[in-house]
């Protein structure tokens, strides 16, 4: 084996060792991935819970739709012991048009309200999770 062949063999060893290490690292990270993904699913369920609560209160008339905008503008935190994480929930409710777009001029009597719930906080939730629901006044 001449010098060139030895160098090539050495380079091949270095290459495959590097590849093996990178794959082993990715395997080690799998548990982290599933934990992080659980955070995302939990964030989506948090958004559902806030919006479903608004649905329920509107159904039961505990909340009038004219008060939706004032009631569902808040920021609060939610801690889940089973995840050891604290989520920041921001709810933004506005009067809007029938497609959920912003009104060109403010109209507190608009028949349409848009609620956007955004959940952020845990480091594993790399981007805030957001969910939107459009509410329509049907009982005039």
């Amino acid at each position, binding site marked *: 084996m001449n010098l060139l062949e030895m160098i090539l063999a050495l380079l*091949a*060893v270095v290459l*495959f060792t590097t*590849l*093996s290490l990178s*794959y*082993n690292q*990715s*395997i080690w990270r*799998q*548990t982290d*991935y*599933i*934990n992080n*993904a*659980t955070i*995302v*699913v*939990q964030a*989506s*369920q948090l958004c*559902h*819970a806030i919006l*479903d*609560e608004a*649905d*329920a*209160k509107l*159904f*039961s*008339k*505990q909340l009038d739709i004219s008060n939706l905008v004032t009631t569902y503008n808040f920021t609060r935190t939610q801690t*889940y012991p*089973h*995840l050891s994480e604290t989520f920041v929930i921001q709810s933004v409710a506005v009067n809007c048009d029938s497609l959920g777009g912003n009104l060109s001029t403010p109209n507190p009597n608009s028949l349409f309200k848009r609620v956007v719930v955004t959940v952020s906080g845990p480091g594993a939730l790399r981007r805030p999770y957001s969910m939107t629901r459009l509410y329509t006044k049907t009982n005039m």
Partner: protein
Amino acid sequence: MMMTTFQIQLQESAVRIQYVSSMIDHMDVAASKVNKTFALAGVGMPVDSVCVYAGTNRVQFRTFWNCDSDTLSATRHIIEMKIDTTSTAFGKALIITQDGAPLENLGYIFYIEAMALKYFDRDGIETAQLADIRSADVLFTFRRDSPWNPGSPLRSNLQVKCFFMNSYLKGA
């Protein structure tokens, strides 16, 4: 030898990625199904007569909704959700029954090891009174043996808020 090792690691990495993604999808689907089942509780029932049993790991309620055919029913049904062992290789599962028989379309939700329930009244105050229950916090513990180490299963928890929407429609 290096090529073989490389190929094996590649294959194992692919299996792990597939495992994680399928598990996350399963958690999301399971939460949606349970939420839907709760939402259809109490159809045609007075709001204070929906729940039959409300335990920390099992719940029973009445409804005139046929959860098997997903249609309105002329007869009253008892829907039950509980964790129980199955005769399959999957072991424990969340079993949803209608009048004692598992539902055809979503009777068994696998990879769920435990379920913990807390109940709330119309104002969101925790309650144990059957007549007052209007919503529930359901904490699921998902468990699945990992393909690379069956002796060390992966567990993940998910908490879902479910509302008895029909009770709210009747004024809660």
